């Protein structure tokens, strides 16, 4: 069982390596003097051309690309991401201030959207072909089709400007240190970010539930005299969840990508809005590091969903040694 998790985790590493190589190549393609990206601009401004050349030698910029990549990678692993072209600050510092915000937003959104999507899909399936099911289906179509930033604008107009329930944007007011103080800033963006995930999960949960409910073992469960709730949840829903985990893994990148738009709409100071402002300001080193961090987070998140899928499905867990317990 552990073997499975470790194998899955080990499979992440080559992928992360390839992504880091792509990011490294991207950084090399940024126009301008690479020295500026490894030392602070203030220092750079005071250097003579001779000193610069020495520095270049010293920094290893004349080394082969492979050596440079390995050095860059080891820096990356130690949290040395280089310097921003625009602010001149360390990229690690910028990321440190932005990553928790996006993590908070994406995580809350993911949990919330997963719960709602599964719940609505479940209800739609057990109330198949009723008015509730049809309403859910139509709302789901709208949720997938309407662009999230338009939802965001409508929500700001309605809930922030007219009803004044939530702030129009930002992450926290003065002194809002705890998570709960920030919650009112989080509600709208997290919900809007999750809408298309809710809709997708609902659609797949409905389909998966209907598929499972037509299985023979559901009839067996009924024949044991179990209540409908037990049949639907314990035997129906638990089995329906398994294929949905795959859908969830595929949708996590979209959720994380969606932060770019949502954070801009809500002026939310996270990785997504950082990406946008850095591209507008041609701060490509920040863009590349941001890309690396967001992509690796997505891979890591998918890994955790895979782990969860293995927990609920013994066939995945014991997939490698299915013959082990077979005592014929």
């Amino acid at each position, binding site marked *: 069982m552990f073997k499975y998790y470790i194998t899955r985790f080990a499979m992440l590493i080559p*992928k992360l390596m*390839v*992504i880091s190589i*792509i990011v490294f190549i*991207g950084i090399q*393609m940024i126009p301008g003097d690479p020295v500026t990206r490894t030392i602070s601009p203030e220092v750079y401004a005071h250097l003579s051309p001779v000193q610069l050349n020495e520095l270049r030698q010293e920094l290893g910029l004349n080394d082969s690309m492979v050596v440079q990549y390995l050095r860059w990678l080891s820096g990356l692993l130690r949290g040395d991401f280089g310097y921003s072209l625009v602010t001149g600050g360390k990229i690690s510092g910028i990321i440190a201030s932005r990553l928790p915000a996006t993590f908070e937003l994406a995580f809350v959104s993911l949990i919330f959207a997963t719960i709602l999507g599964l719940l609505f899909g479940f209800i739609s399936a057990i109330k198949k072909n009723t008015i509730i099911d049809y309403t859910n289906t139509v709302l789901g*179509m*709208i949720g*997938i*089709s*309407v*662009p*999230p*930033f*338009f939802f965001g*604008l*409508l929500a*700001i*107009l309605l809930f922030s*400007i007219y009803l004044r329930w939530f702030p*129009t944007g930002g992450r926290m007011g003065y002194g809002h240190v705890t998570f709960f103080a920030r919650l009112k800033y989080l509600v709208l963006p997290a919900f809007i970010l999750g809408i298309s995930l809710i809709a997708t999960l609902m659609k797949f949960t409905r*389909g998966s539930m209907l598929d499972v409910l037509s299985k023979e073992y559901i009839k067996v469960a009924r024949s044991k005299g179990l209540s409908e709730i037990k049949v639907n949840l314990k035997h129906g829903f638990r089995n329906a969840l398994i294929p949905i985990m795959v859908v969830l893994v595929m949708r996590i*990148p*979209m959720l*994380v*990508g*969606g932060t*770019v*738009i949502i954070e*801009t709409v809500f002026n939310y100071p996270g990785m997504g809005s950082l*990406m*946008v402002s*850095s*591209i*507008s300001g*041609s701060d*490509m080193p920040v*863009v*590349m590091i*941001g*890309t690396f961090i*967001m*992509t690796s987070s*997505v*891979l890591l998140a998918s890994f955790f969903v895979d782990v969860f899928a293995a927990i609920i499905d013994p066939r995945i867990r014991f997939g490698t040694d299915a013959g082990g317990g077979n005592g014929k």
Partner: protein
Amino acid sequence: MGSKNRVKSSLMRRNLHKLLSNRLALVGLGIVLLLVVLSAFAPLFTKYDPSFIDVSQRLQKPSMEHLLGTDNVGRDLFARLLYGGRVSIFIGIVSALIAAAVGIIIGSVSGYFGGKIDMVLLYISEIVMSFPSMILVLVLVGFLGQGILNLIIIFTVVGWPSTYRIIRSRILSLREELFVESCRASGIGGASIMFNHLLPNALGPVVVIITLSTGGYVLAEAGLSFIGLGVASSVPTWGNIINAARNLRIMQNFPALWVAPGVAISLFSLGLSFFGDGLRDVFDPEE
């Protein structure tokens, strides 16, 4: 041969019948066609130039003169919506078609040759897909810059793997089937087997992908233009028009300016999902 054609055409008739009996799919197709016609023949429906600035007419309420009113520099909103639709829909459709074409070509190569070529191409597609597509789009915008052509290129780079995977897996599984063997026995060459027999079998799902991804690219263009990283703001697109809403005063006091393009995008994309889902039911009854 004749009987084979008859079988094919009756299958097509049945599929067509199935599609026509899906009311939601027809409504979707209707919405999409309406928006396409309105945009394509924009000059027939409005007398205004979408870029003509008339400061004396700024921020007019909707009237007979200006059907949806005017924006903050006096441009007619209805005209901008129609001409904006031209650009947005053009980007969406062309990106979807090119991405699918690239996917078909790479997928055919991968599926037909197999072996190392297949492995490398499959791995590349996996790497492309492991990036969140929005992030990849942004990075490419950072390198290539904004503009209609660049957006189409970028959407192609990000979007080809979905078609690629379908084509590849269809070809791999169909290759195993006997009728290919019988073709080979009767002396038809390799490439012609692939294109005459294998591809038609895979085209159904590709049509579905093109339909659904057109909507996806229209949404992506709108999102990018909305955050100011799509098409240059001088060109009217649905996303650029909505961009006005980033001004809180306009957002609050002149909702028509951004709600109208928002509704247009939503309707177009909703129409495509209805139609695309209908197509999927026809081509892939198991789902």
